[in-house]
């Protein structure tokens, strides 16, 4: 995970990309070292699990970065399920969900590369700027990282804010 961003002189895209990437990496890290059973466990009545959180975020990325701009998303029966991917299917595994997430984030980055931060997409409430979408994915990924912090701490006591940076 390269983190060599000129923090002081970061452009708008660099700053947004940095914070989005670090939070995406946190989500992946919060699954690291777990069994399939642990990844599906939930401490709360609403059923939130680490696997469900990552799967949800993959579909959130597809929804905002692709559907807002009429770009294609993968065919998958889970897009019809209430809760937008929170409930993992029987067939989901940590590996399959991480692969989905990796594809989704790459597609998001490509959308920003292709269209730019000034691009205006449409959602059900009206026009939405690409820069808003990037910011929104930062806040939403970070919020779910907060959920993941709690769930992971309750699963096996592991805590931590950011994954170790291999470049440091």
């Amino acid at each position: 995970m390269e983190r060599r961003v000129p923090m002081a002189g970061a452009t708008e895209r660099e700053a947004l990309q940095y914070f989005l990437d670090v939070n995406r990496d946190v989500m992946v890290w919060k699954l690291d070292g777990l069994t399939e059973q642990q990844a599906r466990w939930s401490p709360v009545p609403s059923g939130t699990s680490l696997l469900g959180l990552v799967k949800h975020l993959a579909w959130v990325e597809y929804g905002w970065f692709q559907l807002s701009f009429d770009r294609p998303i993968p065919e998958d029966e889970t897009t019809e399920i209430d809760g937008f991917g929170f409930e993992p299917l029987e067939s989901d595994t940590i590996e399959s969900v991480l692969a989905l997430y990796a594809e989704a984030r790459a597609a998001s980055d490509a959308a920003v590369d292709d269209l730019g931060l000034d691009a205006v997409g449409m959602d059900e409430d009206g026009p939405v700027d690409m820069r808003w979408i990037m910011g929104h994915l930062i806040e939403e990924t970070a919020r779910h990282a907060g959920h993941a912090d709690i769930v992971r701490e309750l699963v096996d006591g592991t805590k931590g804010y950011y994954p170790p940076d291999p470049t440091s």
Partner: protein
Amino acid sequence: MGDQYTGSEKDILVGMLDKNRDVMVWKLDGLTDEQMREAALPSGTNLLGMVKHLAAVEYGWFGLTFDIEVEPLPFDEDDEDADLRVGADESTEDILAFYARARAFADNVISELSLDTTGKAWGRGPERSLRWVIAHMIEETARHAGHADAVRELLDGTTGYLPSGD
């Protein structure tokens, strides 16, 4: 949604930060003082402590970084969790007022400086731009909003994404 979907870079960043600050305050709404201070997890995480921490951090990032005078902050060089703990002598009203002052302070700094303005992080660290600081405050507030979601649900079952009901 409480923020705007279109606009300038600064408008969008400020709107998003404000929305997450509002969520933090909303997650305490309706709880007793005791519940707000209740440690929901082995690590001692509690809602009022999170608010105190976020207030102190807003002052640190927006004040200390850009060399602007701040009120006394609850940090302790020898105790890294000092700003996360709320003592019996600190009223809930005091903590919420602290957060309100911190937000207003930060908003003022943001309105006065350009996004490219830089300063030493917290007055002593590496150079950071205002753009970077706001984006970081958004992720940090949102992350704690995530903690608050979980703590609140464990306390009394209340869930919810935004105060506006979205």
